[in-house]
């Protein structure tokens, strides 16, 4: 798991970034490359680069509604760090990303490992768990709204049926339980991803190695511990990053289930920017919080970016 270690800083980073600008090697230059790349890069510039730079620019403006934008310096950012709603959004984002990543990766990894002991007979069950990953966040949100619905939802009606009436609760009416429900719904959809990557790493293990272990008298637990777990680690690493990135950027599920409520209690930074910029028309302020989100995403993905970049 070396790529998970803290990336080295200082001189090596400078040299590394400088290497990006060095010629790609070889003597001949194929100018036709620009013809092939033109549509890709034009589209990329319009749909990704322009919005990126523009969001950063707007974050330094005082721009509300349809009025004329005024330069505001770093005012939006200083306002952010003293805004209790934003500080709460930071806290919620931390809880949300850690909880969703931890539980979906833990479940997906465990399921992949246990299935590794009996690939054949667990196939149908694995596909069933994996299927939830194919359901959109909006549809999952609606499905889970049904589960926690106070009057006839699955949870409350089961509690009443077994005589635990006093435990029945309006789960989305309280910021703490609403957060638990959101995390549960997101873990339900995301677990398929770690399951997929970890299981892909496990099926790649040479069969002869596992067979040899059994011939030598290894128990299932020993095979699990000494073969399946070490081989699954690359898949585990990928899964941690992908789920972490997904949950940092999450929006759809939160919008479908709580819209950040009750009283902004389940608002992550990714949702806060939408509330400020779109609902309250504070584009400059919303843009500043988006830049904070972007920085968080970039910091989290540094190891991933390094790995992707070393490939060339």
């Amino acid at each position, binding site marked *: 798991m070396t790529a998970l270690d803290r990336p080295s800083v200082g001189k090596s980073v400078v040299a590394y970034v400088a290497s990006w*600008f060095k010629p790609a090697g070889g003597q001949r230059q194929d100018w036709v490359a620009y013809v092939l*790349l033109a549509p890709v890069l034009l589209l990329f510039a319009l749909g990704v680069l322009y919005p990126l730079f523009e969001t950063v620019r707007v974050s330094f403006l005082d721009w509300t509604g349809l009025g004329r934008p005024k330069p505001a310096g770093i005012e939006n950012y200083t306002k952010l760090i003293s805004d209790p709603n934003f500080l709460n959004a930071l806290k919620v984002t931390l809880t949300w990303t850690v909880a969703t990543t931890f539980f979906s990766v833990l479940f997906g990894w465990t399921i992949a490992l246990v299935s590794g002991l009996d690939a054949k007979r667990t196939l149908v069950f694995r596909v069933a768990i994996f299927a939830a990953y194919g359901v959109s966040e909006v549809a999952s949100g609606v499905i889970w709204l*049904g589960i926690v619905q106070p009057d006839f939802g699955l949870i409350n009606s089961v509690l009443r049926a077994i005589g635990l009436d006093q435990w029945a609760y309006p789960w989305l009416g309280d910021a703490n339980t609403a957060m638990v429900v959101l995390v549960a719904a997101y873990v339900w959809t995301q677990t398929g991803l770690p399951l997929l990557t970890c299981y892909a790493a496990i099926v790649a293990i040479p069969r002869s190695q596992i067979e040899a272990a059994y011939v030598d008298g290894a128990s299932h637990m020993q095979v699990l511990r000494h073969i399946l777990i070490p081989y699954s680690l690359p898949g585990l690493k990928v899964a941690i990053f992908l789920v972490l990135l997904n949950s940092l950027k999450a929006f759809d599920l939160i919008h479908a289930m709580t819209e950040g409520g009750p009283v902004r209690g389940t608002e992550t930074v990714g949702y806060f920017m939408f509330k400020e910029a779109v609902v309250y028309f504070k584009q400059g302020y919303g843009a500043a919080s988006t830049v904070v989100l972007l920085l968080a995403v970039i910091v989290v993905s540094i190891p991933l970016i390094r790995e992707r970049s070393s490939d060339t």
Partner: protein
Amino acid sequence: MNDIYKPPLWPMLLIGVVSLIWVLPLIGIIMTSIRPEGETLKGWWNIEEFTLTLEAWREVWVNYPLWDALWNSIKIAGLSSLGSILLAPMGAYAFAFLNFPGKKVTFLLLVNAFVIPNQILIIPLFTLWRNVGLIDNIFSVIIPFVALSMAWAVFLVRNYLVDFPRSLIDAAHIDGCGHVRTFWSVVLPNALTPMAAVGILQFMWTWNSLMLPMLFLRENIPLPVLLTKIKGTYEPNWDQVAVATIITSVIPLLIFLYFQKYFAAGASNQSGQKG
């Protein structure tokens, strides 16, 4: 490995129980859609009295513009996938086989953009689309969808192409093919697998996404946006909400389950490994 040893029973039982918990929400939504709402209100799992009815399945098309939303979803996801399928191999060919100034920096900028959150797009693009009159036009979402996909799609196809036999390309060059001709007649017909993977991943992703269509479209909304509107109405009919949820989910779910292996390739691809 089953020849050598007999696997114990507990892994199957454990995974079986977990999968039962996982499909419970899906069973719930199907049960809700085929019973009168009055019965569901006593708990969908309660089958003491069970009346099978497809009334919600008929009503929902009349009460909500579901056909329009379905058609919009097909157009948006279809055109976005087509755009990604056509453009990704062009970029991939340039990055896999050609040398040109700025290659490395362009490549790194492009392929690392997959970390960028969609939230970055909404303020600038909303202003831009409003100024050029593209709000409520499906291209207001197709353009950013295809642009965002370039980050992973070019990388995916390029990783496939670098393993492509160089001798075939050299042979084409000796026979007098230029790069454009080589790309079109030699490489493209042999890159159908990664192109299919790009199309399927992009179709799923664009079909399921909510944020951009919700902000840039007014009337021409796809299914996920319509679904949030249906569930947001005062006192929603839960049986009809259930039907709308199933209709929103069923096409991507079937594609997803049928093409599972492409998702394995896509996931390991995002991490920088060769899938």
